[in-house]
């Protein structure tokens, strides 16, 4: 069958995009958590094994990845609060748009506080 040209992307607004981001971050965190539990389990095997693996984490690339993870968690958490306000606060639905922007603002502030410390640790901490 011939392939049809695709329809366009739905041009949703803040509500839709914040949900997309929430879903993507939730998904990412879950897979990080899998890996994280697995590697931490190595403490049970032996300190050497654990330190070896953790050691490989201590390169700048992993450091950046870690920053990404923190970003994901921070966004997911903040937006999670927004979602709960939408769900339980009687006026939450009316202010959801404003709350999205507050989430974004808080996210930026928190990351601005965290990133310098973290990156400092990653790149200068040896």
């Amino acid at each position: 069958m011939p392939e049809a040209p695709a329809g366009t992307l739905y041009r949703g607004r803040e509500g839709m995009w914040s949900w997309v981001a929430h879903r993507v971050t939730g998904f990412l965190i879950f897979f990080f958590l899998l890996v994280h539990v697995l590697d931490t389990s190595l403490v049970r095997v032996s300190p050497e094994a654990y330190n070896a693996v953790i050691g490989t984490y201590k390169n700048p690339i992993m450091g950046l990845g870690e920053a990404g993870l923190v970003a994901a968690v921070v966004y997911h958490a903040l937006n999670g609060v927004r979602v709960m306000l939408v769900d339980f606060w009687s006026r939450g639905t009316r202010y959801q748009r404003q709350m999205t922007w507050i989430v974004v603002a808080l996210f930026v502030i928190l990351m601005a506080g965290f990133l310098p410390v973290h990156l400092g640790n990653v790149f200068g901490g040896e």
Partner: protein
Amino acid sequence: MAASTPTLAAPRSPRRARRPNTELYSWVFMRASGALLLILIFVHLFTNLVSGGGVSAIDFGFVAGKWAKPVWQVWDLLILWLAMIHGANGLRTIINDYATRTGTRLTLMGLLAVAFAVVVVLGTLVIFTFSPCPPGAPADLLPSFCTAG
């Protein structure tokens, strides 16, 4: 006759629960666990990544040092369980949304269940059976209190 309007609280019909409330509980759980995780994870991240020396300071000694205190054992165990249930439940929703074919859905759900079980069991065992000073390990890798005794 003075007319007055009756006030009945909504919803106004006899309670007759037939359908199981699974989706309802799962939805409530997502919010409750989310709220708890918020505190648990932020403290976890803060202690691990910010205070002290950040990631670069994490090693066996650091972990063992933390888990020697029951508070942190319970703390991390809670994170493990809540996050895994929360995340797995979230993934279940995602799978339901995108995997329209029953076959695909069942496969993915199976994978999810296995991953969930392995990680939760493994993680729990590690936290509980963990010994901070495994015999025979080089002392410089262990937390300082191992040698103090």
